[in-house]
């Protein structure tokens, strides 16, 4: 029997169903989902997918040097754009390496879809080569995860994963795909929508509760807004700013919430919590109404819970009902999407005529606290103060850079001294506190915004946890500016040892540091070093002048500088160690 020789004409429309392999489905679904960039690392179990990725151009793949970096980069891509970040890794070690990145995103509620390869279905459970129980390992650090055993379920699963990642309280969703599933064929049709009877996040806040909340704010003598990462995630900075300005109330942000309200505004008190400002923490302890929006009363924010905001009635708006009254008993709980809630609050506030109350006495008190100038430091002409470096970075980038950070003292100084007037400019690992986050995060942000200046504020400890990514930066010509506040110590560990472990510096000293300038050069980048205060400004200027080059700035800073103010763990917020 002769086979028909003519090739059938194929329609390119995705509404026509056609037979595709699992790998083709993955790539087509990513495209249909509007994904432009995927960060990943190939391996045996995902080779069919890589093969398909290579045949098209709509979805760009960025090859990192370690799977952890792939997830951090996808995470920061999401943080800077608001889109769902996508990472692709292989089975076994590919998946386990990705876990730190997934947990980082989970703690900060960042929407990600992580695709992991898996051994063929028939081998699952057999201790096959590069087999690990990926859905088992990632269950506690994903919003949800899937193991796709049947190619017919692949498209729907991908659609559902994107929906789950981005809706409600966002978070990472993992899809584990066995290798044979990527080779099997089925008809492809990307589903239009997702219907889940068991998952229906609340969007609109309860109007009665919102009225009650606004009445409390209207009657307050000492109101305070306390806002977190939820404002950033829900893209409601403008709505928040409108409400806070109308109320003429002071506002403080959590580490995750910076940029949710303009830092340069008079009503902004700075960050609160363990390394928050004196005025912010004192305001928390003295306010009579605390308006918590998209924040979760983390232990680093509240200090000792039994002494937290002792005089305040608390209003708490969050999209996650489980966040409400988890740590602190709340007087007016509201479940809903902040953007929708804040819009309604602004309308109600206008209707109710809120904002004509006089808070002069409260502001006079706050100004008095501000006079304490708690972030004060003295820059001499001999040793570089790390705070000075961040301040100069802020000035010379006109506050417009996307700043990523690692974890430790430098992170706190970046949060304290780089004023963020806009959301999605400050990218750091707040919940999990993942060292090694900063550089891959800078890559993700730079891929998302090629025209923006991206600065990674880091330390010599953190940067070495993912230093291999300098190679990725070279491959993709990412002109990131790394600002390494090099004090030769794991600074935050050293600070705790100085304060709480009688100055026994167990393993916090880093001997045998590499020459970072030469290291940067070895990777094909430019290395610059600043050894004295007079070098700081010229080094930053030079780095910023080299617009299309990656520059590693190694600032040799005061080795024993501490982050102030500091609330010791377990103390009340008003018990701050000040300079």
């Amino acid at each position: 029997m002769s086979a028909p020789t003519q090739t059938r004409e194929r329609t390119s429309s995705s509404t026509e169903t056609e037979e595709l392999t699992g790998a083709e489905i993955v790539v087509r679904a990513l495209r249909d989902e509007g994904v432009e960039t995927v960060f990943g690392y190939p391996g045996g179990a995902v080779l069919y997918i890589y093969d398909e990725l290579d045949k098209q151009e709509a979805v760009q793949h960025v090859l990192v040097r370690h799977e952890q970096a792939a997830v951090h980069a996808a995470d920061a891509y999401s943080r800077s754009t608001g889109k769902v970040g996508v990472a692709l890794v292989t089975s076994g070690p590919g998946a386990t390496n990705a876990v730190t990145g997934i947990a980082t995103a989970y703690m900060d509620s960042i929407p990600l879809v992580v695709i992991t390869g898996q051994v063929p279905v028939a081998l699952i459970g057999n201790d096959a080569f590069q087999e690990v129980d990926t859905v088992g390992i990632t269950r506690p650090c994903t919003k949800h995860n899937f193991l796709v055993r049947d190619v017919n379920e692949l498209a729907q699963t991908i659609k559902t994963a994107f929906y789950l990642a981005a809706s409600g309280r966002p978070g990472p969703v993992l899809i584990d795909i066995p290798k044979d599933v990527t080779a099997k064929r089925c008809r492809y049709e990307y589903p239009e929508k997702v219907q889940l009877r068991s998952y229906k996040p609340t969007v609109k806040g309860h109007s009665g509760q919102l009225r009650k909340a606004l009445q409390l704010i209207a009657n307050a003598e000492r109101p305070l807004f306390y806002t977190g990462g939820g404002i950033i995630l829900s893209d409601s900075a403008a709505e928040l700013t409108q409400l806070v300005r109308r109320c003429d109330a002071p506002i403080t942000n959590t580490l995750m919430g910076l940029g949710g309200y303009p830092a340069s505004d008079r009503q902004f008190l700075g960050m609160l919590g363990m390394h928050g400002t004196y005025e912010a923490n004192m305001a928390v302890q003295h306010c009579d109404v605390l308006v918590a929006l998209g924040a979760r009363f983390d232990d680093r924010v509240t200090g000792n819970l039994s002494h937290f905001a002792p005089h305040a009635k608390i209003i708490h708006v969050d999209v996650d009902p489980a966040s409400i009254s988890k740590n602190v008993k709340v007087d007016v709980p509201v479940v809903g999407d902040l953007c929708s809630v804040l819009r309604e609050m602004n309308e109600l506030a206008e209707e109710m005529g809120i904002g004509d109350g006089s808070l002069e006495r409260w502001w006079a008190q706050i100004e008095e606290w501000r006079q304490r100038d708690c972030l004060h430091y003295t820059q001499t002409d001999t040793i570089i103060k790390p705070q000075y470096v961040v301040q100069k970075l802020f000035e010379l980038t006109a506050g417009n850079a996307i700043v990523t950070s690692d974890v430790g003292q430098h992170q706190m100084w970046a949060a304290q001294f780089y004023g963020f007037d806009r959301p999605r400019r400050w990218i750091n690992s707040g919940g999990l506190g993942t060292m090694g986050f900063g550089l891959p995060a800078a890559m993700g942000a730079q891929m998302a915004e090629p025209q923006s200046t991206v600065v990674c504020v880091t330390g010599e400890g953190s940067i070495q946890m993912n230093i291999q990514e300098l190679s990725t930066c070279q491959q993709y010509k990412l002109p990131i500016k790394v600002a390494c506040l090099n004090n030769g110590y794991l600074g935050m560990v050293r600070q705790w040892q100085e304060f709480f472990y009688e100055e026994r510096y167990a393993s916090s000293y880093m001997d045998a540091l590499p020459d970072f300038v030469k290291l940067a050069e070895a990777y094909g980048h430019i290395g610059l070093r600043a050894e004295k205060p007079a070098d700081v400004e010229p080094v930053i200027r030079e780095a910023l002048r080299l617009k299309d080059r990656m520059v590693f700035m190694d600032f040799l800073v005061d080795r024993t500088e501490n982050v102030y103010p500091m609330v010791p763990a377990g103390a009340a917020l008003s018990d701050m160690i000040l300079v």
Partner: protein
Amino acid sequence: MHRHIISVLLENEAGALSRVAGLFSARGYNIEAMTVAPTHEASVSRMTILTQGSEEIMEQVLKQLNKLVEVIRVHDLSEGPHIERELMLIKVHAVGSDREEVKRLADIFRGRIIDVTDRSYTIELTGTGEKLDAFLHALDPGMVIEVVRSGASAISRGAKSI
């Protein structure tokens, strides 16, 4: 600290059980017993969890369970009138005069002897956990060979479903 019986309706899918069990262990919530099986709707499983905790903890338990993507509904049955039953199978030594004694005791508790050898009885008993405890206490501890309990299942009273 109060005892709570929580009913959970969830998608009958691989991994759903371990999500619930994992949630309890990760957050340090107490589980005394947990049962799960499909319902009349094949795609839905029903789980009964026996737990203890303060009011605040119970509020979190319910919220966290609700947050699991595969969980369709969560209900704390101990908030209203409900019926609770547990099945126990118990194998006891039964020789000589003990044979009659054990049989009488089983009758009093409305248990049934479901397996017999010349040296043992296996008894089936249903009731609340308390009743099963009482039966165990009534037996001479030396007689007990083996006990298996199903953990409680529970349902609300009245015509409505949860």
